[in-house]
């Protein structure tokens, strides 16, 4: 994973609320065994249904931030959803809230789920709808987005996760470094369940 640096990007408005991960990437695309190439299937059914759908417009490829409605990413736990968003070219999604599993999955892959209040959200949605070339700047270290009018808005971010993202490291290293504590825990609390030997 690459360290996340401050970046400026164009916005793409997608005002629907409760966009579930089946819309982001339908289940028939989950029969893959790697992560590559899923960007082509992002919102594929919505793109097929409406030639004017925003992701079919040329501006979509120029955008780096999706501005979507409340409760983005609800439903299935498929990590293919953030893989597809990243594969398409998005670096962040802005909404008023995210579903828990999607938010976790996004952060594991360096896709920023940015939560803003309703007023800021409306402002960003209007901006995105009115001016396809408008850019905002995302500064993860400062936890701010800066609008074209110069106004900076802060967003919440887990401090631990933020450090990981800024350094470009994932959690496996942190967890494997806890091997001694894990071994001690297993000795003290091992639990009786063993899945082996398996039944015939």
């Amino acid at each position, binding site marked *: 994973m690459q360290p996340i640096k401050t970046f400026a990007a164009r916005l793409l408005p997608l005002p*629907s*609320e*409760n966009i*579930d991960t*089946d*819309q982001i990437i*339908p*289940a*028939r695309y*989950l*029969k*893959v*065994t*790697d*992560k590559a190439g899923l960007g082509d299937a992002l919102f594929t*059914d919505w793109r097929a249904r409406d030639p004017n759908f925003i992701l079919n417009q040329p501006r979509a490829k120029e955008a780096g931030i999706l501005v979507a*409605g*409340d*409760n983005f990413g*609800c*439903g*299935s*736990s*498929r*990590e293919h959803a953030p893989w597809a968003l990243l594969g398409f070219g998005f670096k962040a999604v802005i909404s008023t*809230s995210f*579903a*828990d*599993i999607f938010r*976790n*999955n996004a952060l*594991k*892959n360096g896709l920023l789920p940015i939560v803003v209040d309703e007023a800021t959200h409306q402002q960003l949605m209007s901006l995105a709808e009115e001016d396809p070339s408008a850019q905002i700047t995302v500064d993860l270290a400062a936890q701010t987005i800066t609008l074209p009018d110069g106004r900076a808005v802060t967003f919440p971010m*887990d*401090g*631990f996760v933020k450090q990981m993202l800024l350094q470009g490291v*994932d*959690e*496996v290293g*942190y*967890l*494997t470094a*806890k*091997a001694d*504590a*894990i071994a001690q*825990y*297993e000795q003290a*609390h091992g*639990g*009786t*369940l*063993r*899945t*082996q*030997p*398996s*039944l*015939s």
Partner: protein
Amino acid sequence: MPQTLFEKIWNAHVVAQDAGAPAVLYIDLHLVHEVTSPQAFSGLRARGLQVRRPDKTVATLDHSTPTKDLHLPIADPLAAKQVAQLEANCAEFGVPLYGLNSERRGIVHIIGPELGLTQPGMTIVCGDSHTSTHGAFGALAFGIGTSEVEHVLATQCLLQRKPKTFQVRMGGALQPGVTAKDIILALIAQIGIEGGTGHVLEYTGNAIRALSMEARMTVCNMSIEGGARAGLIAPDDTTFEYLAGRPFAPQGEAWERALAGWRQLPSDEGARFDQTVTLDAGALEPMITYGTNPGMGVPISGRTPDPDALRDVGQKNAARKALDYMGLRPNQPLLGQPVDVVFIGSCTNSRISDLRLAAGVLKGRRVHPRTRVLVVPGSQQIKRQAEQEGLDTVFKAAGAEWRESGCSLCIAMNGDQLEPGQYAVSTSNRNFEGRQGRGGRTFLASPLTAAASAVEGQIADARMYTG
């Protein structure tokens, strides 16, 4: 200080907690299936890591597997590759696999409880959002993404922030013809599909205590549809009776020791929840959804909403969009809506008790000529039991298709799918656009409602059939 069931399980599983960092949470059971694991095993391989505890890991095949002609090679080359990949990964890393030809294979959330792997007080994860099912046993069970699958494979641990708690108190007693599925659909209609976000639900009250283990699993299964990653029910004698004697349940003295521990798990008197909601189960009717998320549910005698009558702009737009996709009119009664397909299956409602309910309605009756009915048992064991009870004969005589176990039409990855525009009454858990096949339209309901609708070829009130 009095503790909730959730807090007891959480506290017992914290391995380490650095200042400012999330807890390192130990995982007692990791369930694995073919769709969300290949990239996790590849990650392990790339890092040169092993599976830390293959003896706390179990894999099965369910999502992309066929539900008929199991003796033939899998026709879809991508599904075949994914199945072969899991077989190879399990062999390489020593993970037990209940494979295509295993008599113990089934939907991952069905076989965990069935084999006695799912036990009270455990932490259980799986790369699947319906892992919440296992909470019915008083286990903290939640869905994770593929990155986290890799973390658990490598370390048997996850980094987690402590969620909040949310009590769902369900008083009263269910009326005849009203089931666990109706309880959970009614709850989600009330709290909304993000009502439980950031929380672990605990279902309490007389109506919950009166449910069988299978019905409790139906309730916990759909916690995620209310936004909560996990839903819990305190273990009691119903739980222990279900578990006793199952293959992986503790035996003899170990059983007695386990039992003593499990009896300490229920939330203490006076334990505090961050939120509480109360529902009267006695007031519930059978529920059905009309829209494109599981929160869009109404009593079966109800009507679709009129978007123009809704004040909230978001709700107005959502209702309009949902009715447009579903091809339904505002204020339309749900009863009498023609149905092309009925699906009885999924990790929500494919257990033996679900099949018995459906068969009870279909016995001596015929499926309506315009309707196709798929009955997909949750596991090969359930399939065998149903056949021993003659349920398969009832289904086939009525004109329904009787299949091998798997996720099937719930997620439509295996060739079982709706055609564009088709209407289905489905006992599964999600009615999202295209969930059961591109352009397909889903009404979520109980096995009773599904079976009654199969007979009438339209959405029907099962209470006319259940005496």
